[in-house]
């Protein structure tokens, strides 16, 4: 992927690349997330498109130096559009033997390997389960290995500070960061600024980190350590203001935006669970927006309080992950019955049961569709990327308040934690969501189950409103008065009505749009597989294949033209991080034979895994 090469004044060559994937890996204590985030911020500001993925250990603090304690951060940046954090890294920074042990297998053949040799003592090797020192045998021969005495060099650079060794060693990630800035021809400005504002109150730490960063940069520069350095030019991005955002942040922001645009106070009823807790952490900081967060005693109370708040007129949301969803089933049925607006967010993780709590998966789709007793249809939508979480949750708020029926929004651990640059919407461009609370009984008696003929929505009258006193509850309701009704025909009518209400929302959805070719092979996806599919489809088309990509936000109901689209193609491929749940739905709904591609390994698809399958199925264009 080298595009051109030139020689800098300093004597080293600069090669221009269109895409680079770097993985920083070290012990949890080594500050790899920080390093990664700094590199990301600078790369973003300097104009590349990018995507990142942090990979934390499952343990809170695994013993230092062990395999279980390895923490990683991957960034994929490019002068072209970026869809995923990248498959195999081109560069691996390994701060200790455990990081090397865990990550080396992913590094591209011939890739750059930067190693902190200071941490390869016998004891370190033992903890990393190395029998032999990999620096001493030929196991690294297939890579361009740079051995750096990173700890020693950092200590030297910080001698002047008089800090204790323990404290000095904490700065070694900045040394590494400095080296990487040099190697990729990035400036240090952004990180220097960050260090200065972050450590304002701790001048010694500020100084130490600044020194380490500069020393790392200088190490690359002065010693001509790398014979070649690289640059990845700016990408052609749509003009606008950008920020980096991960999925959970975007959900929180989208909810606040929806609160502002509906004029309804936001209420979150929830219980902490990985990987959904961060939404609570975010929202609990937004009190100035009138956001009320309630950390309940469990998930049941979380959704129950949200339903109560909805009854009282708030924009209510409950957030959780798989096991928590399993507990909310009964209350979801009640939400369907009382026809109140409610957003239910599931950040899926590896299942079943406790499963793989820190890993990603898409296996809760069928649960979203059917995880309630009785005929309890719900709107189900899914976000495709970190930034898309904002738009998707905003849409959830629009649908739930307009149709007075709950919405399930599916995200997953991958996009919840992974981040990408997000072009900020103009606040004024965000649609106003019109919500009218009912205040006029209209005639003698208020009819809480009367309906808007178009949307089938019932009126939303909230306690405190004079003259609108009424009862809601989980027993079957008379279709008008809302009183308890055991009438057989009324029940049948209400069951149909609740179904039709959801079906008819299809009329209100924008048409589904395909990216790529409009015949040949269709790759159909939903949720976080968007990036990998988009990248793979693009590559396949470059290779001359006839492939289109349809990615569903709306799963229940689906957009009306989905059926037509599907029948336009010869073949349909559905890659999912489950055993084929969307495939089931497509089978069931469209009686269509599809090709499945399943991956249930707690990790997203590689672009190449999908590409391979596409190449197997697609025809030449």
């Amino acid at each position, binding site marked *: 992927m080298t595009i051109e090469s030139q020689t800098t004044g300093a004597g080293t060559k600069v090669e221009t690349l269109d895409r680079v994937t770097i993985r920083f890996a070290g012990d949890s204590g080594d500050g790899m997330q920080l390093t990664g985030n700094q590199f990301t911020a600078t790369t973003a*500001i300097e104009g590349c498109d990018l995507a990142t993925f942090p990979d934390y250990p499952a343990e809170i603090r695994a013993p230092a130096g062990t395999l279980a304690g390895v923490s990683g951060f991957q960034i994929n940046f490019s002068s072209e559009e970026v869809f995923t954090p990248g498959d195999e890294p081109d560069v691996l920074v390994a701060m200790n033997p455990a990081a090397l042990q865990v990550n080396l297998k992913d590094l591209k053949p011939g890739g750059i390997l930067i190693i902190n040799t200071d941490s390869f003592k016998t004891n370190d090797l033992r903890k990393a389960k190395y029998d032999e020192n990999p620096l001493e045998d030929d196991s690294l021969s297939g890579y361009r290995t740079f051995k750096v005495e990173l700890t020693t060099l950092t200590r030297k650079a910080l001698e002047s500070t008089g800090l204790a060794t323990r404290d000095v060693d904490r700065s070694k990630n900045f040394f590494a960061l400095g080296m990487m800035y040099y190697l990729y021809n990035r400036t240090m400005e952004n990180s220097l600024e960050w260090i200065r504002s972050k450590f304002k109150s701790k001048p010694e730490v500020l100084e130490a980190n600044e020194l380490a960063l500069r020393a790392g940069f200088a190490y690359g520069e002065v010693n001509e350590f790398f014979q070649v350095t690289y640059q990845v030019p700016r990408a052609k*991005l*749509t*003009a*606008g*203001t*950008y*920020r*980096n*955002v991960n999925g959970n942040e975007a959900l929180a*922001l989208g909810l*606040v*935006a929806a609160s502002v645009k509906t004029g309804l*106070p936001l*209420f979150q*009823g929830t219980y902490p669970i990985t990987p959904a807790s961060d939404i609570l952490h975010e929202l609990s900081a937004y*009190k*100035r*927006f*009138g956001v*009320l967060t*309630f950390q*309940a*005693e469990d998930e*049941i*109370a979380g*959704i*129950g*309080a949200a*339903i*109560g*708040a*909805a*009854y*009282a*007129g*708030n924009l*209510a949301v409950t957030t959780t992950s798989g096991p928590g969803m399993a507990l909310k089933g*009964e*209350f979801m049925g*009640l939400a369907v019955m009382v026809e109140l607006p409610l957003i239910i967010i599931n950040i899926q993780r590896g299942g079943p049961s406790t499963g793989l709590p820190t890993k990603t998966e898409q296996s809760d789709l069928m649960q979203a569709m059917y995880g309630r007793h009785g005929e309890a249809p719900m709107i189900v939508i899914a976000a495709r990327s970190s930034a898309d979480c904002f738009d998707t949750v905003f849409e959830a708020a629009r649908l739930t308040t307009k149709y007075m029926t709950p919405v399930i929004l599916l995200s997953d651990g991958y996009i919840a934690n992974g981040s990408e640059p997000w*072009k*900020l919407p103009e*606040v004024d461009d965000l649609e106003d969501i019109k919500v009218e609370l009912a205040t006029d009984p209209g005639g003698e008696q208020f009819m809480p189950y009367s309906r808007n003929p178009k949307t089938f929505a019932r009126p939303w009258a*909230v*306690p*405190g*409103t*004079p*003259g*609108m*006193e*009424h*009862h*809601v*509850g*989980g*027993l079957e309701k008379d279709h008008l008065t809302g*009183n*308890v009704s055991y009438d057989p025909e009324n029940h049948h009518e209400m069951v149909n009505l609740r179904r039709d209400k959801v079906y008819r929302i299809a009329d209100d959805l924008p048409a589904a749009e395909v990216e790529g070719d409009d015949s040949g092979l269709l790759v159909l996806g939903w949720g976080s597989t968007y990036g990998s599919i988009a990248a793979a489809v693009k590559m396949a088309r470059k290779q001359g294949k006839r492939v289109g990509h349809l990615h569903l936000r709306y799963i229940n109901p689906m957009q009306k033209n989905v059926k037509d689209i599907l029948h336009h193609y010869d073949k349909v491929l559905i890659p999912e991080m489950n055993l084929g749940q969307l495939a089931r739905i497509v089978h069931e709904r469209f009686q269509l034979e599809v090709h499945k591609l399943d991956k249930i390994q707690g990790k997203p698809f590689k672009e190449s895994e999908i590409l391979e399958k596409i190449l197997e199925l697609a025809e030449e264009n």
Partner: protein
Amino acid sequence: MTTELKLTKKDFVSDQMVRWCPGCGDYSILNAVQQTFPELGIPKEKFVVVSGIGCSSRFPYYMDTYGFHSLHGRAPAIATGIKLANPDLSVWIATGDGDALSIGGNHIIHLLRRNVDIKIMMFDNRIYGLTKGQYSPTSETGKRTKSTPYGSLDRPFRALELALGAQATFVARAIDTYGAHLKEVLKAASDHKGASFMQIYQNCNIFNDGAFEQYRDKKVRDDNLLELRHGEPLIFGKDRDKGIRTTDCYQPEVVQLGNGITEKDLLVHDEDGPLGYLYMLANLEPPDFPAPIGVLRKTKAPCFAAAAHEQMDYVKEKEGEGDLEQLLKSGGTWVVE
């Protein structure tokens, strides 16, 4: 707060047919509540009655107020959400012994711990009424019911003690048929700022008839009941000639007044008394002691929903009202031209 709103009982009677068994104690409670609500100085539209599932939980339908008949055991969750969303509402829970203490036990103790300003009326008939007669967590050990044909084995909860253990700031007991007293308790609960827990003994004449006969039967009830009044000595008995004192520390004792024993020797009820005293009280029961009714505990503590809004207001004042544009742009932005 007691502005004249000119509400009467009729304003709180809904058009729904009451569907409890004839003779059920729930009728008396409904009546007392419908009589009390107009006297609380609260506008009608601000009442919300939330319930779970059970005979008692049909209560909201019969009140012409906002009402939510939710799920078995879950009224406290719904009610907490309502109160948090709008602390200005007067939120009441109607629940049963099974609803509140079996499936709903956790929500109840958390509501009490948080001191959410909600009024809990627990209709305690010591049985599952709606599901036709299984034993409940307040049924006495050894009870033979549909689900325990050979007698139950678990010890019942002592509801007042459990509520205290969860640090309830208002704990009271009343009896379905003793309407005047029940109304006093309801009023006191309404006036209390904080979570109010009321255990209301209620006769289920179908599945557990006579469970509270010793408290309902006019002939014996005065000897079995200790009517608590703040600041007054613990006196009871038909002839108000018996009292409670503590000889050895922490050990209560019934004494006959007279013969040198006077009111002065008796314990004086203190709603805000030390925990040791309150727990002692909560556990008195026949045959050795009378059972206390009335307000056992009333103490001050911050209310959860109000505090949440105060905190929000405080933050708004300190940080300024949120600005969406600013928020979106937080966390480091860059511009692509």
